[in-house]
């Protein structure tokens, strides 16, 4: 890669990292799967790159008290293959498995992905459906933001200057609940043309809880609240799925028009929900 000149620091502790990003035009480097291509094309030209690679203890996956904590530098591959995630937040493991290709999954991190907030990234749909929280720290602050308040717009998040994503906190899924992540991958970029994450809990024959996150369709991932409500009040999958695109502006590109994206969101929501339903017990 032939980027512009930049300064590079590889802090050896979180404290040092936070001090480094506290001022000036600093850019965090995690897996580099989004940042480096942009630097290579000179679409990004950070003056100072702060690499998290040597910061110890940011790549943990732990579970306690009904919450799975995922450190910012956990890679997509680690998520996909972690027994904890597969057991306690399998929706997220499924989503991670859909990201890019093997190389990207080996390098890219959850912190980097959500900080980048590509409107077609895979995680946001699942994080919304899981009602995850994102913990942001800076040299002076430490706060936790729900996923629904984190993804603000295309490439725009609640991260303030000087903050970094420390961890993602996911309430564990119950073993009885059904889940599914479905994705239409763009044939070139691999990103989600549309991605739908679905969770279903049943009480007897009825749906007691439904969560639906949609990514790729719009400038930011969103929860299909109307469809969730319909399902929870006894509507069928088809009827609920038909509403997922309502009230949302849809993206368009060479591959898919806005109308087709909406259509895909409805079709794949129905398919994701059907699988989730069949997995719920």
């Amino acid at each position, binding site marked *: 890669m*032939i*980027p*512009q*000149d930049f300064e590079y620091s590889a802090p050896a502790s979180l404290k040092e990292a936070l001090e480094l990003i506290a001022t000036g035009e600093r850019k965090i480097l995690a897996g580099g799967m989004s940042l480096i291509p942009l630097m290579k*094309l*000179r679409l990004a030209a950070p003056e100072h790159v702060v690499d998290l690679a040597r910061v110890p203890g940011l790549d943990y996956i732990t579970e306690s008290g009904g919450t799975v904590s995922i450190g910012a530098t956990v890679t997509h591959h680690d998520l996909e293959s972690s027994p904890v995630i597969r057991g306690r937040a399998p929706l997220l493991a499924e989503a991670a498995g859909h990201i890019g*290709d093997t190389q990207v999954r080996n390098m890219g991190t959850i912190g980097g992905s959500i900080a980048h907030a590509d409107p077609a990234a895979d995680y946001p749909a699942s994080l919304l459906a899981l009602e995850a929280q994102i913990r942001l720290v800076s040299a002076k602050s430490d706060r936790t933001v729900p996923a629904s308040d984190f993804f603000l717009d295309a490439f725009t998040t609640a991260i303030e200057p000087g903050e970094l994503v420390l961890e993602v906190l996911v309430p564990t899924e119950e073993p009885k609940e059904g889940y599914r992540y479905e994705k*239409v991958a*763009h*044939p*070139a*970029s691999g990103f989600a043309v549309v991605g739908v994450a679905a969770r279903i809990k049943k009480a007897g024959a009825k749906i007691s809880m439904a969560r639906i996150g949609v990514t790729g369709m719009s400038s930011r991932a969103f929860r299909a609240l109307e469809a969730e409500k319909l399902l929870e009040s006894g509507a069928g999958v088809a009827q609920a799925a038909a509403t997922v695109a309502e009230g949302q502006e849809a993206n368009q*590109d*060479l*591959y*898919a*028009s806005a109308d*087709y994206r909406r*259509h*895909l969101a409805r*079709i794949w929501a129905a398919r994701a929900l059907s699988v989730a339903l069949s997995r719920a017990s």
Partner: protein
Amino acid sequence: MATTTTKPETLFGKKIRRREDPRLLTGTATYLDDIKMPGMHHACVVRSPHAAARIKSLNVKPALARPGVTAVFTGADVKDLGPIPCGASLPGLRTPHHHILAQDRVYLVGHPVAVVVATDRYIAADAVDLIEVDYEVLPAVSDPEKALAPGAPAVHPQWPDNTAFTFHQEGGDITGAFAQAEVVVKQRITSQRLIPTSMETRGVVADWHAGDKSLTLWSSTQIPHLLRTLLAGILGMPENHLRVITPEVGGGFGSKLNVYAEEALMAFVSMRIGKPVKWVESRRENFLCTIHGRGHVDYFELAARRDGTMLGLRLKLIQDLGAYHQLLTPAIPTLSVLMMPGLYKFKNISADIVGVFTNCTPTDAYRGAGRPEATHGIERMVDILAAELKMDPAELRRKNFVGKDEFPFQTATGLAYDSGNYVLPLDTALAEIDYPALRREQQQARASGKLMGIGLSTYGEICAIGPSPATPAGGWESATVKIEPSGKITVMTGASPHGQGEETTFAQIVADELGVDIDDVVVVHGDTAIVQYGIGTFGSRGTAIGGTALYYALQELKGKVKKFGAMLLECDDVALAGGKCVDERSGKSVPFAQVAAASYRAMKLPPNTQPGLVATYFWEPPNFTFPFGAHVVITDVDRETGQVSIRRYVAVDDCGKIINPLIVAGQVHGGVAQGLGQALWEQAVYDENGQLLSGELTDYALPRAHMMPWIESSHTETPSPVNPLGVKGVGEAGTIGCSPAVVNSVVDALSHLGVRHIDMPLTPEKVWKLIQGGRA
């Protein structure tokens, strides 16, 4: 002592692993960007962001002021060099003067405007951003049909109709054919613009030696010798002061069968700065500045009788040429015309080509070069006719095939098909899939609302390009074989393989002919100072022509080896086997090494024989070769989303005799991948201002491994009588056979909904809309 010599098994036809792979797979091969030289400078090219603009001013001072920047050159510096050559000659062809750097106007996005030279690549890239160019943006046109409309912006102001040439070819009695016709089917069929995208982009290193006024130029090219000749012309330099070397070339697919501005530019830069200089193309540049392929809008009309007898084919072909002619740009659509009758015996054709300038990247030869377009056209038209006549598409094809006893078959386009048995691969493929059972399954699927399709393409191609009268720069190929004093064998081929595996297949030919171990053979290519003149590798010609030249060189050499062998063994004649010359009567033998040593030591020479063991052969082929085959594709279409998935892909190809089935399989797989790319995913999309929107791999969808179906590949073998090896060529077969089979399959899946044609690529949205009720 008498020994019995058993004739060793020949290597011809054996699955020998590619000898080039270990170095390629272990990262020890030397590609262009691996070349490092003391004092080497780096160049970056400043390119136009506009498709059409006048350069009002150009300020290079801020770039020159950047420490590390050695020089900046602009159009004014190179205005007397060139032009970049076009090798195609057509009557009345308008050829814009193609400067190495833009003069006062740019004609496409990516047009080189200046070159920055610096001590390292980062500085060069930074300095590009410091060059100030003031453009007056002009209207541009990117769609060839719009470019032909009255009042369209003129790409080149001197030719307001944007027409570079028109070309008419006719054979037989086309008017009569259409007069007799009981059915005429018409269809507009496009073959979209594609970006060849070889894994290695282009790159050039130039090293000027002021002392002897000579220049060594490394380029990632398919045609080192032609490049040298043409570059000498551009630079005004004696050809023999120029040496062109191709390091390892990471694919070309025709895109490196060209002479590019940067090759001349780096030569110029090195001469001016007196230092070696390197330029390596970025992927973005590769998408904008290396040729594109296809770019056809075709209007077909096929005349037939109700019984399915095809009578004649008319074609109006609009070729999007781009802004300039590269080496073969205008010639490519003429190849389409040659191929237009396909494998069918009707003898009446008429074709009109309009070559159109657009403010886009030039089109030129891309895998198949003109032939995939033609095959796509005829194979789609046959299916459209079958649908019109409610005939089975396989049956309609059989009815119209040139019969296996009709070869050589003279086509309406002036070709003589060498050999063939067209029914055989079709029937083999249909048997493989159990065609009748699938048709029944299709009926049931339709009844239950599912969409599945069966698509055929029975393609033919023109390979071994080609006899010299049909090729702009000569169509022969050369080979030299040397037996070194130690008995080891060195082959120098004028063909310039870049992934096709000739280092293996050629060594197989040598091993068989001389009866030596394949490990004793080295194949050298791609250095004009070492290898005798040659034409290059493209048009599936490497083995069929280059291999044949080698075969004949070996025959000459064998004669000489035998003379020395017989002299040493004191007998009349010897056989070559097991790395030895063997007197079959006495059983006495002498190893090659001894024969070779004797020939160079030359203490004693056979009568009328000169020392040394070297033979060179330049072979002029008497004809093209004409491979053929049948591809059958079964698709399932998701009714709700329009997503196409390939259930089975069966390819039965006939490329004549097969020297190495592994290599042939590789060529078929790669070819099919690129055919699928065109059928399903790839398209170079320009907006109306001439901006390439699919400008990176994030939008331009290449087939990747996980997108590929399993390819069930098999072969029939109909030897070519054109060359003694009986080979025909297989480099482009997969690409040519594939796309119509896929499109026919999807149209077949949707035919009961009234769909007759879909243009490529078959994106899900397009297919979905047709399922929604739009007819095409």
